[in-house]
Protein backbone atom coordinates (compact mmCIF):
# COMPACT_ATOMS: atom_id res chain seq x y z
CA UNK A 1 0.00 0.00 0.00
CA UNK A 2 1.29 3.45 -0.90
CA UNK A 3 2.39 5.62 1.99
CA UNK A 4 2.45 9.40 2.26
CA UNK A 5 6.02 10.58 1.66
CA UNK A 6 7.85 11.83 4.73
CA UNK A 7 10.14 14.03 2.65
CA UNK A 8 10.02 16.14 -0.48
CA UNK A 9 12.39 15.36 -3.36
CA UNK A 10 14.91 18.12 -4.11
CA UNK A 11 16.05 17.88 -7.74
CA UNK A 12 18.86 20.39 -7.10
CA UNK A 13 20.75 17.48 -5.53
CA UNK A 14 20.85 15.67 -8.89
CA UNK A 15 21.09 18.44 -11.50
CA UNK A 16 24.42 18.42 -13.36
CA UNK A 17 24.39 22.24 -13.61
CA UNK A 18 23.58 25.29 -11.50
CA UNK A 19 20.31 27.11 -12.00
CA UNK A 20 20.98 30.79 -12.85
CA UNK A 21 20.46 32.98 -9.78
CA UNK A 22 17.92 35.79 -9.77
CA UNK A 23 19.12 39.37 -10.18
CA UNK A 24 18.11 42.23 -7.86
CA UNK A 25 15.11 44.30 -8.80
CA UNK A 26 15.81 47.65 -10.42
CA UNK A 27 16.16 50.55 -8.02
CA UNK A 28 12.88 52.27 -7.29
CA UNK A 29 12.61 55.72 -5.73
CA UNK A 30 11.12 55.73 -2.25
CA UNK A 31 11.43 51.98 -1.73
CA UNK A 32 10.57 50.95 1.83
CA UNK A 33 13.30 49.60 4.15
CA UNK A 34 14.19 46.00 3.32
CA UNK A 35 12.72 43.20 5.38
CA UNK A 36 12.54 39.45 4.82
CA UNK A 37 9.46 38.54 2.78
CA UNK A 38 9.82 34.76 2.72
CA UNK A 39 10.51 32.58 5.79
CA UNK A 40 14.11 31.43 6.03
CA UNK A 41 12.92 27.84 6.28
CA UNK A 42 11.59 28.04 2.73
CA UNK A 43 14.72 29.71 1.38
CA UNK A 44 16.82 27.01 3.07
CA UNK A 45 14.76 24.49 1.11
CA UNK A 46 15.38 26.42 -2.11
CA UNK A 47 19.13 26.51 -1.64
CA UNK A 48 19.66 23.08 -0.12
CA UNK A 49 21.44 20.40 -2.09
CA UNK A 50 20.13 17.62 0.14
CA UNK A 51 18.10 15.14 -1.90
CA UNK A 52 15.40 14.66 0.74
CA UNK A 53 13.84 17.57 2.63
CA UNK A 54 11.80 16.34 5.62
CA UNK A 55 8.10 17.21 5.67
CA UNK A 56 7.25 18.81 9.05
CA UNK A 57 4.88 16.72 11.19
CA UNK A 58 1.98 19.25 11.17
CA UNK A 59 2.17 19.39 7.35
CA UNK A 60 2.30 15.61 7.05
CA UNK A 61 -0.70 15.35 9.37
CA UNK A 62 -2.63 17.80 7.18
CA UNK A 63 -1.70 15.81 4.05
CA UNK A 64 -3.35 12.75 5.63
CA UNK A 65 -6.77 14.31 4.95
CA UNK A 66 -6.48 13.39 1.25
CA UNK A 67 -3.10 11.82 0.51
CA UNK A 68 -1.95 9.50 -0.91
CA UNK A 69 -3.96 10.48 -3.96
CA UNK A 70 -5.19 7.79 -6.36
CA UNK A 71 -3.25 6.55 -9.35
CA UNK A 72 -5.45 4.69 -11.77
CA UNK A 73 -5.11 3.03 -15.13
CA UNK A 74 -7.36 4.78 -17.66
CA UNK A 75 -8.62 1.53 -19.18
CA UNK A 76 -11.88 2.98 -20.53
CA UNK A 77 -10.00 5.86 -22.15
CA UNK A 78 -7.60 3.31 -23.67
CA UNK A 79 -10.57 1.32 -25.01
CA UNK A 80 -12.22 4.44 -26.42
CA UNK A 81 -8.99 5.32 -28.23
CA UNK A 82 -8.35 1.72 -29.25
CA UNK A 83 -4.76 2.34 -28.28
CA UNK A 84 -1.92 -0.03 -27.64
CA UNK A 85 -0.54 2.43 -25.04
CA UNK A 86 -0.98 1.93 -21.30
CA UNK A 87 -2.32 5.14 -19.80
CA UNK A 88 -2.23 5.94 -16.09
CA UNK A 89 -3.34 9.10 -14.35
CA UNK A 90 -2.60 10.58 -10.95
CA UNK A 91 -5.59 12.53 -9.65
CA UNK A 92 -4.89 15.58 -7.48
CA UNK A 93 -8.40 17.06 -7.44
CA UNK A 94 -9.75 15.13 -4.48
CA UNK A 95 -9.21 17.71 -1.77
CA UNK A 96 -11.31 20.64 -0.65
CA UNK A 97 -9.42 23.09 -2.89
CA UNK A 98 -9.96 20.83 -5.90
CA UNK A 99 -6.36 20.90 -7.10
CA UNK A 100 -2.72 20.11 -6.40
CA UNK A 101 -2.19 23.63 -5.06
CA UNK A 102 -2.99 22.56 -1.51
CA UNK A 103 0.25 20.51 -1.51
CA UNK A 104 2.26 23.73 -1.20
CA UNK A 105 -0.35 26.03 0.35
CA UNK A 106 -0.25 24.02 3.58
CA UNK A 107 3.52 24.05 4.12
CA UNK A 108 3.72 27.70 3.09
CA UNK A 109 1.01 28.69 5.58
CA UNK A 110 2.76 26.62 8.24
CA UNK A 111 6.11 28.38 7.69
CA UNK A 112 4.59 31.87 7.41
CA UNK A 113 2.60 31.36 10.61
CA UNK A 114 5.73 30.19 12.43
CA UNK A 115 7.37 33.40 11.23
CA UNK A 116 4.68 35.46 12.96
CA UNK A 117 2.80 36.50 9.83
CA UNK A 118 -0.85 37.42 10.43
CA UNK A 119 -2.17 37.98 6.92
CA UNK A 120 -1.30 36.34 3.61
CA UNK A 121 -1.89 38.09 0.29
CA UNK A 122 -1.74 36.45 -3.09
CA UNK A 123 -2.72 36.56 -6.72
CA UNK A 124 -4.65 33.74 -8.37
CA UNK A 125 -5.34 32.96 -12.00
CA UNK A 126 -8.03 30.33 -12.28
CA UNK A 127 -8.76 30.50 -8.55
CA UNK A 128 -7.27 27.13 -7.62
CA UNK A 129 -4.30 28.64 -5.81
CA UNK A 130 -6.45 31.29 -4.13
CA UNK A 131 -8.79 28.59 -2.83
CA UNK A 132 -5.91 26.45 -1.57
CA UNK A 133 -4.29 29.43 0.12
CA UNK A 134 -7.58 30.42 1.77
CA UNK A 135 -7.96 26.88 3.14
CA UNK A 136 -4.36 26.74 4.41
CA UNK A 137 -4.40 30.25 5.90
CA UNK A 138 -7.49 29.42 7.91
CA UNK A 139 -5.94 26.11 8.99
CA UNK A 140 -3.05 28.00 10.61
CA UNK A 141 -5.08 30.98 11.91
CA UNK A 142 -4.19 33.70 9.40
CA UNK A 143 -6.27 36.15 7.37
CA UNK A 144 -6.12 35.87 3.58
CA UNK A 145 -6.68 38.37 0.79
CA UNK A 146 -6.74 37.26 -2.84
CA UNK A 147 -6.38 39.27 -6.05
CA UNK A 148 -8.18 37.12 -8.61
CA UNK A 149 -7.62 37.70 -12.33
CA UNK A 150 -10.66 39.66 -13.56
CA UNK A 151 -11.51 37.25 -16.35
CA UNK A 152 -11.66 34.28 -13.94
CA UNK A 153 -13.46 36.38 -11.32
CA UNK A 154 -16.25 36.89 -13.86
CA UNK A 155 -16.14 33.37 -15.33
CA UNK A 156 -15.95 31.47 -12.04
CA UNK A 157 -17.93 33.19 -9.29
CA UNK A 158 -18.16 29.99 -7.23
CA UNK A 159 -14.39 29.80 -6.91
CA UNK A 160 -14.74 33.14 -5.16
CA UNK A 161 -17.46 31.66 -2.93
CA UNK A 162 -15.12 28.85 -1.90
CA UNK A 163 -12.39 31.31 -0.92
CA UNK A 164 -14.87 33.38 1.04
CA UNK A 165 -16.18 30.25 2.77
CA UNK A 166 -12.70 29.86 4.25
CA UNK A 167 -12.63 33.48 5.40
CA UNK A 168 -10.63 35.04 2.57
CA UNK A 169 -11.49 38.38 1.01
CA UNK A 170 -11.33 38.48 -2.78
CA UNK A 171 -10.78 41.39 -5.19
CA UNK A 172 -11.03 41.27 -8.97
CA UNK A 173 -7.72 42.23 -10.59
CA UNK A 174 -7.28 44.86 -11.98
CA UNK A 175 -8.71 46.35 -8.82
CA UNK A 176 -9.09 49.96 -7.88
CA UNK A 177 -7.14 49.31 -4.67
CA UNK A 178 -3.59 49.59 -6.02
CA UNK A 179 -1.60 51.86 -8.31
CA UNK A 180 -0.76 48.89 -10.52
CA UNK A 181 -4.43 47.96 -10.85
CA UNK A 182 -5.56 51.48 -11.61
CA UNK A 183 -2.82 51.96 -14.22
CA UNK A 184 -3.69 48.65 -15.91
CA UNK A 185 -7.37 49.58 -16.04
CA UNK A 186 -6.52 52.76 -17.92
CA UNK A 187 -4.40 50.86 -20.42
CA UNK A 188 -6.70 47.82 -20.75
CA UNK A 189 -10.28 48.83 -19.89
CA UNK A 190 -11.72 45.35 -20.64
CA UNK A 191 -10.92 44.33 -17.02
CA UNK A 192 -9.56 40.92 -18.03
CA UNK A 193 -6.26 41.26 -16.20
CA UNK A 194 -3.65 38.56 -15.94
CA UNK A 195 -1.76 36.70 -13.25
CA UNK A 196 1.33 38.91 -13.53
CA UNK A 197 -0.83 41.91 -12.66
CA UNK A 198 -2.57 40.07 -9.79
CA UNK A 199 0.86 39.31 -8.33
CA UNK A 200 1.89 42.94 -8.78
CA UNK A 201 -1.22 44.12 -6.94
CA UNK A 202 -0.51 41.64 -4.14
CA UNK A 203 3.04 42.93 -3.71
CA UNK A 204 1.81 46.51 -3.54
CA UNK A 205 -0.80 45.52 -0.96
CA UNK A 206 1.83 43.82 1.21
CA UNK A 207 4.13 46.85 1.04
CA UNK A 208 1.31 49.00 2.39
CA UNK A 209 0.19 46.61 5.13
CA UNK A 210 2.73 45.65 7.84
CA UNK A 211 2.13 42.15 9.19
CA UNK A 212 1.13 40.93 5.74
CA UNK A 213 3.24 38.83 3.45
CA UNK A 214 2.90 37.78 -0.16
CA UNK A 215 2.87 34.10 -0.98
CA UNK A 216 2.89 32.44 -4.36
CA UNK A 217 1.48 29.15 -5.54
CA UNK A 218 3.95 28.26 -8.22
CA UNK A 219 7.20 29.27 -9.80
CA UNK A 220 9.51 29.40 -6.81
CA UNK A 221 11.79 26.46 -6.10
CA UNK A 222 10.11 25.74 -2.75
CA UNK A 223 6.63 25.44 -4.27
CA UNK A 224 7.93 22.98 -6.87
CA UNK A 225 9.68 21.09 -4.08
CA UNK A 226 6.46 20.76 -2.04
CA UNK A 227 4.64 19.38 -5.09
CA UNK A 228 7.04 16.46 -5.42
CA UNK A 229 4.75 14.50 -3.10
CA UNK A 230 2.79 13.84 -6.32
CA UNK A 231 5.67 12.21 -8.18
CA UNK A 232 7.05 10.44 -5.13
CA UNK A 233 3.70 8.73 -4.58
CA UNK A 234 3.24 8.01 -8.28
CA UNK A 235 6.65 6.34 -8.48
CA UNK A 236 5.77 4.00 -5.64
CA UNK A 237 2.28 3.32 -7.02
CA UNK A 238 3.60 2.49 -10.49
CA UNK A 239 6.39 0.34 -9.03
CA UNK A 240 3.74 -1.66 -7.13
CA UNK A 241 2.19 -2.38 -10.54
CA UNK A 242 5.55 -3.25 -12.07
CA UNK A 243 5.43 -0.17 -14.27
CA UNK A 244 7.75 2.73 -15.13
CA UNK A 245 6.46 5.55 -17.37
CA UNK A 246 7.98 6.07 -20.79
CA UNK A 247 6.48 9.55 -20.72
CA UNK A 248 4.98 11.84 -18.06
CA UNK A 249 2.53 14.57 -19.12
CA UNK A 250 1.57 17.60 -17.04
CA UNK A 251 0.26 21.02 -17.94
CA UNK A 252 2.60 23.94 -17.47
CA UNK A 253 1.80 27.34 -16.04
CA UNK A 254 4.53 28.48 -13.71
CA UNK A 255 5.56 24.86 -13.34
CA UNK A 256 4.49 23.39 -10.03
CA UNK A 257 2.30 20.47 -11.08
CA UNK A 258 4.73 19.64 -13.87
CA UNK A 259 7.73 19.74 -11.54
CA UNK A 260 5.76 17.95 -8.87
CA UNK A 261 5.04 14.86 -10.91
CA UNK A 262 8.06 14.93 -13.23
CA UNK A 263 11.03 15.68 -10.97
CA UNK A 264 11.03 12.45 -8.93
CA UNK A 265 11.06 10.43 -12.18
CA UNK A 266 13.61 12.71 -13.82
CA UNK A 267 15.77 12.41 -10.71
CA UNK A 268 16.00 8.64 -11.23
CA UNK A 269 17.20 9.26 -14.77
CA UNK A 270 19.72 11.88 -13.63
CA UNK A 271 21.16 9.39 -11.14
CA UNK A 272 21.75 6.92 -13.98
CA UNK A 273 18.47 5.02 -13.61
CA UNK A 274 15.64 4.44 -16.05
CA UNK A 275 14.95 6.93 -18.82
CA UNK A 276 11.77 9.00 -18.95
CA UNK A 277 10.34 11.68 -21.24
CA UNK A 278 8.80 14.51 -19.24
CA UNK A 279 6.47 16.63 -21.36
CA UNK A 280 5.20 20.05 -20.27
CA UNK A 281 1.95 20.89 -22.05
CA UNK A 282 0.99 24.50 -22.63
CA UNK A 283 -1.80 26.39 -24.37
CA UNK A 284 -1.15 27.55 -27.93
CA UNK A 285 -2.42 30.95 -26.77
CA UNK A 286 0.35 31.30 -24.15
CA UNK A 287 3.29 29.25 -25.49
CA UNK A 288 6.12 30.49 -23.27
CA UNK A 289 8.20 27.33 -23.63
CA UNK A 290 7.68 26.44 -27.28
CA UNK A 291 7.71 30.03 -28.57
CA UNK A 292 9.14 32.16 -25.75
CA UNK A 293 12.68 33.36 -25.18
CA UNK A 294 15.08 32.30 -22.40
CA UNK A 295 15.88 35.58 -20.73
CA UNK A 296 15.90 37.47 -17.45
CA UNK A 297 12.44 38.88 -16.83
CA UNK A 298 10.20 40.24 -14.12
CA UNK A 299 7.91 37.79 -12.40
CA UNK A 300 5.01 40.23 -12.30
CA UNK A 301 3.49 43.11 -14.24
CA UNK A 302 4.76 45.90 -11.98
CA UNK A 303 8.40 45.52 -13.01
CA UNK A 304 9.66 45.78 -9.43
CA UNK A 305 10.42 42.13 -8.66
CA UNK A 306 13.84 40.45 -8.77
CA UNK A 307 14.65 39.24 -12.26
CA UNK A 308 14.61 35.53 -12.95
CA UNK A 309 15.97 33.75 -16.00
CA UNK A 310 12.96 32.06 -17.51
CA UNK A 311 11.31 31.00 -20.73
CA UNK A 312 9.04 33.99 -21.14
CA UNK A 313 6.76 35.93 -23.45
CA UNK A 314 7.53 39.09 -21.45
CA UNK A 315 5.88 40.29 -18.26
CA UNK A 316 3.94 42.84 -20.34
CA UNK A 317 2.50 40.09 -22.54
CA UNK A 318 -1.27 40.23 -22.40
CA UNK A 319 -2.54 36.67 -22.58
CA UNK A 320 -5.51 36.00 -24.86
CA UNK A 321 -8.80 35.00 -23.22
CA UNK A 322 -8.15 31.29 -22.87
CA UNK A 323 -10.01 29.23 -20.29
CA UNK A 324 -7.04 27.58 -18.62
CA UNK A 325 -6.44 30.45 -16.21
CA UNK A 326 -3.68 28.61 -14.41
CA UNK A 327 -1.65 28.46 -17.62
CA UNK A 328 -1.93 32.14 -18.52
CA UNK A 329 1.28 33.16 -16.71
CA UNK A 330 3.72 34.85 -19.08
CA UNK A 331 6.69 32.67 -18.11
CA UNK A 332 7.56 29.43 -16.42
CA UNK A 333 9.70 28.92 -13.34
CA UNK A 334 13.44 29.44 -13.45
CA UNK A 335 13.97 25.83 -12.35
CA UNK A 336 11.81 24.27 -15.08
CA UNK A 337 13.26 26.77 -17.57
CA UNK A 338 16.85 25.80 -16.78
CA UNK A 339 16.03 22.10 -17.02
CA UNK A 340 14.25 22.69 -20.35
CA UNK A 341 17.16 24.75 -21.62
CA UNK A 342 19.46 21.79 -20.92
CA UNK A 343 17.19 19.53 -22.97
CA UNK A 344 16.13 17.34 -20.07
CA UNK A 345 12.39 17.90 -20.54
CA UNK A 346 10.15 18.62 -23.53
CA UNK A 347 7.26 20.96 -24.26
CA UNK A 348 4.21 20.80 -26.52
CA UNK A 349 1.49 23.38 -27.18
CA UNK A 350 -2.14 22.72 -28.13
CA UNK A 351 -5.20 24.74 -29.13
CA UNK A 352 -7.92 24.95 -26.51
CA UNK A 353 -10.74 23.50 -28.65
CA UNK A 354 -8.74 20.27 -29.06
CA UNK A 355 -7.85 20.32 -25.35
CA UNK A 356 -11.48 20.67 -24.29
CA UNK A 357 -12.40 17.80 -26.62
CA UNK A 358 -9.96 15.50 -24.83
CA UNK A 359 -11.18 16.81 -21.47
CA UNK A 360 -14.73 15.74 -22.36
CA UNK A 361 -13.53 12.36 -23.60
CA UNK A 362 -11.67 11.83 -20.32
CA UNK A 363 -14.79 12.72 -18.34
CA UNK A 364 -17.00 10.37 -20.35
CA UNK A 365 -14.57 7.48 -20.04
CA UNK A 366 -12.93 7.91 -16.63
CA UNK A 367 -15.69 9.75 -14.75
CA UNK A 368 -13.58 12.73 -13.74
CA UNK A 369 -13.97 16.15 -15.32
CA UNK A 370 -10.42 17.49 -15.60
CA UNK A 371 -9.68 21.17 -15.02
CA UNK A 372 -8.96 22.93 -18.33
CA UNK A 373 -5.31 23.08 -17.25
CA UNK A 374 -5.20 19.33 -16.62
CA UNK A 375 -7.04 18.69 -19.89
CA UNK A 376 -3.90 19.94 -21.67
CA UNK A 377 -1.95 17.04 -20.17
CA UNK A 378 -4.75 14.63 -21.02
CA UNK A 379 -4.81 15.87 -24.61
CA UNK A 380 -1.07 15.47 -25.10
CA UNK A 381 -1.23 11.93 -23.74
CA UNK A 382 -4.19 11.15 -26.01
CA UNK A 383 -2.14 12.31 -28.97
CA UNK A 384 0.79 10.14 -27.86
CA UNK A 385 -1.52 7.16 -27.40
CA UNK A 386 -2.88 7.59 -30.92
CA UNK A 387 0.66 7.80 -32.30
CA UNK A 388 1.61 4.64 -30.42
CA UNK A 389 -1.24 2.75 -32.08
CA UNK A 390 -0.12 3.89 -35.52
CA UNK A 391 3.49 3.01 -34.73
CA UNK A 392 2.56 -0.33 -33.16
CA UNK A 393 4.22 0.47 -29.84
CA UNK A 394 2.90 0.09 -26.30
CA UNK A 395 4.34 2.85 -24.16
CA UNK A 396 3.40 3.50 -20.55
CA UNK A 397 2.02 7.05 -20.29
CA UNK A 398 1.44 8.91 -17.02
CA UNK A 399 -0.82 11.97 -16.82
CA UNK A 400 -1.04 14.42 -13.94
CA UNK A 401 -4.71 15.35 -13.60
CA UNK A 402 -3.88 18.28 -11.36
CA UNK A 403 -7.43 19.32 -10.54
CA UNK A 404 -11.11 18.95 -11.30
CA UNK A 405 -13.06 21.14 -13.68
CA UNK A 406 -16.38 21.45 -11.88
CA UNK A 407 -15.96 25.22 -11.58
CA UNK A 408 -15.22 25.36 -15.30
CA UNK A 409 -18.50 24.00 -16.60
CA UNK A 410 -19.34 27.24 -18.40
CA UNK A 411 -16.15 26.81 -20.41
CA UNK A 412 -17.05 23.18 -21.14
CA UNK A 413 -20.54 24.35 -22.15
CA UNK A 414 -18.94 26.82 -24.55
CA UNK A 415 -16.81 24.01 -25.94
CA UNK A 416 -19.78 21.70 -26.40
CA UNK A 417 -21.79 24.42 -28.15
CA UNK A 418 -18.94 25.43 -30.45
CA UNK A 419 -18.41 28.84 -28.87
CA UNK A 420 -14.74 28.39 -28.01
CA UNK A 421 -12.18 30.22 -30.09
CA UNK A 422 -8.60 29.16 -30.54
CA UNK A 423 -6.42 31.98 -29.38
CA UNK A 424 -3.10 32.11 -31.18
CA UNK A 425 0.05 34.03 -30.45
CA UNK A 426 0.22 36.87 -32.94
CA UNK A 427 3.51 38.39 -34.05
CA UNK A 428 2.34 41.74 -32.68
CA UNK A 429 1.50 40.36 -29.21
CA UNK A 430 4.81 38.49 -29.09
CA UNK A 431 6.78 41.56 -30.14
CA UNK A 432 4.99 43.74 -27.58
CA UNK A 433 5.67 41.22 -24.82
CA UNK A 434 9.37 40.70 -25.45
CA UNK A 435 9.90 44.41 -26.08
CA UNK A 436 9.30 44.83 -22.36
CA UNK A 437 12.15 42.52 -21.37
CA UNK A 438 14.60 44.35 -19.11
CA UNK A 439 18.17 44.92 -20.18
CA UNK A 440 20.49 43.15 -17.78
CA UNK A 441 24.16 42.79 -17.11
CA UNK A 442 25.10 39.44 -15.64
Amino acid at each position, binding site marked *: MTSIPTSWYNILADLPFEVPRELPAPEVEGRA*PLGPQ*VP*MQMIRQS*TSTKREIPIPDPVGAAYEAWRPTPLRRATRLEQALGTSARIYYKYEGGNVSGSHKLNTAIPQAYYYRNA*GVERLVTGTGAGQWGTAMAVAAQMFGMDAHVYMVGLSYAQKPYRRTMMQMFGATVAASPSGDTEAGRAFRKEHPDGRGNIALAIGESLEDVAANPGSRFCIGSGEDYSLLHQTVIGEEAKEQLADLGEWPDAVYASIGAGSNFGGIAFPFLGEQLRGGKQVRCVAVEPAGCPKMTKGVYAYDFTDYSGTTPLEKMYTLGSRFVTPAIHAGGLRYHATSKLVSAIYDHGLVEAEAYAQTDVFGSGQLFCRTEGILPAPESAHAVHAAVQAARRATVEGTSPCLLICVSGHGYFDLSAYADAMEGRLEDAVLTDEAFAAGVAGLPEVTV
Partner: protein
Amino acid sequence: MSVPDHDTIRTGVVKSLLAEGKLSDPSVELDETTAVNAGAFRIDSLAFIRAFIALEDEFDIEFGDDALMQNTFSTVGEIVAYVESEIRKQASA
Protein backbone atom coordinates in the same frame (compact mmCIF):
# COMPACT_ATOMS: atom_id res chain seq x y z
CA MET B 1 30.43 30.27 23.40
CA SER B 2 32.81 33.20 22.83
CA VAL B 3 31.27 36.29 21.30
CA PRO B 4 33.07 37.74 18.27
CA ASP B 5 33.89 41.44 18.49
CA HIS B 6 32.02 44.13 16.60
CA ASP B 7 34.60 44.40 13.81
CA THR B 8 34.48 40.66 13.15
CA ILE B 9 30.69 40.74 12.98
CA ARG B 10 30.73 43.79 10.69
CA THR B 11 33.25 42.10 8.39
CA GLY B 12 31.12 38.95 8.29
CA VAL B 13 27.95 40.90 7.51
CA VAL B 14 29.61 42.92 4.75
CA LYS B 15 31.08 39.76 3.19
CA SER B 16 27.70 38.00 3.18
CA LEU B 17 25.86 41.00 1.79
CA LEU B 18 28.41 41.49 -0.98
CA ALA B 19 28.21 37.80 -1.89
CA GLU B 20 24.44 38.03 -2.37
CA GLY B 21 23.82 41.65 -3.40
CA LYS B 22 25.08 43.93 -6.13
CA LEU B 23 27.29 46.98 -5.82
CA SER B 24 26.73 49.18 -8.87
CA ASP B 25 29.86 51.25 -8.22
CA PRO B 26 32.90 49.07 -7.40
CA SER B 27 34.74 52.06 -5.97
CA VAL B 28 32.16 52.34 -3.18
CA GLU B 29 33.04 50.53 0.04
CA LEU B 30 30.27 48.91 2.01
CA ASP B 31 30.30 50.27 5.56
CA GLU B 32 27.80 50.70 8.35
CA THR B 33 26.42 53.91 6.86
CA THR B 34 25.70 52.34 3.48
CA ALA B 35 22.01 52.40 2.63
CA VAL B 36 20.35 49.16 1.58
CA ASN B 37 18.48 49.44 -1.73
CA ALA B 38 18.66 53.22 -1.82
CA GLY B 39 21.97 53.86 -3.51
CA ALA B 40 24.88 51.87 -4.87
CA PHE B 41 24.10 48.68 -3.00
CA ARG B 42 21.09 46.60 -3.98
CA ILE B 43 19.92 43.25 -2.74
CA ASP B 44 16.56 41.55 -3.22
CA SER B 45 14.64 39.97 -0.40
CA LEU B 46 15.48 36.37 -1.34
CA ALA B 47 19.19 37.11 -1.59
CA PHE B 48 18.93 39.02 1.68
CA ILE B 49 17.66 35.90 3.44
CA ARG B 50 20.43 33.86 1.84
CA ALA B 51 22.91 36.33 3.34
CA PHE B 52 21.43 35.63 6.78
CA ILE B 53 21.69 31.89 6.16
CA ALA B 54 25.40 32.38 5.38
CA LEU B 55 25.77 34.35 8.60
CA GLU B 56 24.24 31.47 10.54
CA ASP B 57 27.05 29.25 9.29
CA GLU B 58 29.72 31.88 9.85
CA PHE B 59 28.79 32.61 13.47
CA ASP B 60 27.21 29.26 14.38
CA ILE B 61 23.89 30.77 15.38
CA GLU B 62 20.29 30.47 14.23
CA PHE B 63 18.02 33.33 13.30
CA GLY B 64 14.41 32.55 14.09
CA ASP B 65 11.91 33.30 11.33
CA ASP B 66 9.57 34.86 13.87
CA ALA B 67 12.13 37.47 15.02
CA LEU B 68 13.74 38.14 11.66
CA MET B 69 10.49 38.61 9.72
CA GLN B 70 9.39 41.39 12.07
CA ASN B 71 12.44 43.56 11.31
CA THR B 72 13.26 45.96 8.52
CA PHE B 73 16.70 47.35 7.73
CA SER B 74 17.64 50.65 6.08
CA THR B 75 21.42 50.53 6.45
CA VAL B 76 24.22 47.99 6.74
CA GLY B 77 24.78 49.28 10.29
CA GLU B 78 21.24 48.23 11.29
CA ILE B 79 21.92 44.73 10.00
CA VAL B 80 25.24 44.56 11.88
CA ALA B 81 23.50 45.72 15.08
CA TYR B 82 20.77 43.09 14.69
CA VAL B 83 23.23 40.27 14.04
CA GLU B 84 25.39 41.36 16.98
CA SER B 85 22.41 41.48 19.34
CA GLU B 86 21.31 38.00 18.24
CA ILE B 87 24.81 36.59 18.73
CA ARG B 88 25.01 38.07 22.23
CA LYS B 89 21.50 36.89 23.11
CA GLN B 90 22.23 33.34 22.03
CA ALA B 91 25.64 33.31 23.74
CA SER B 92 24.07 34.25 27.07
CA ALA B 93 21.16 31.82 26.76
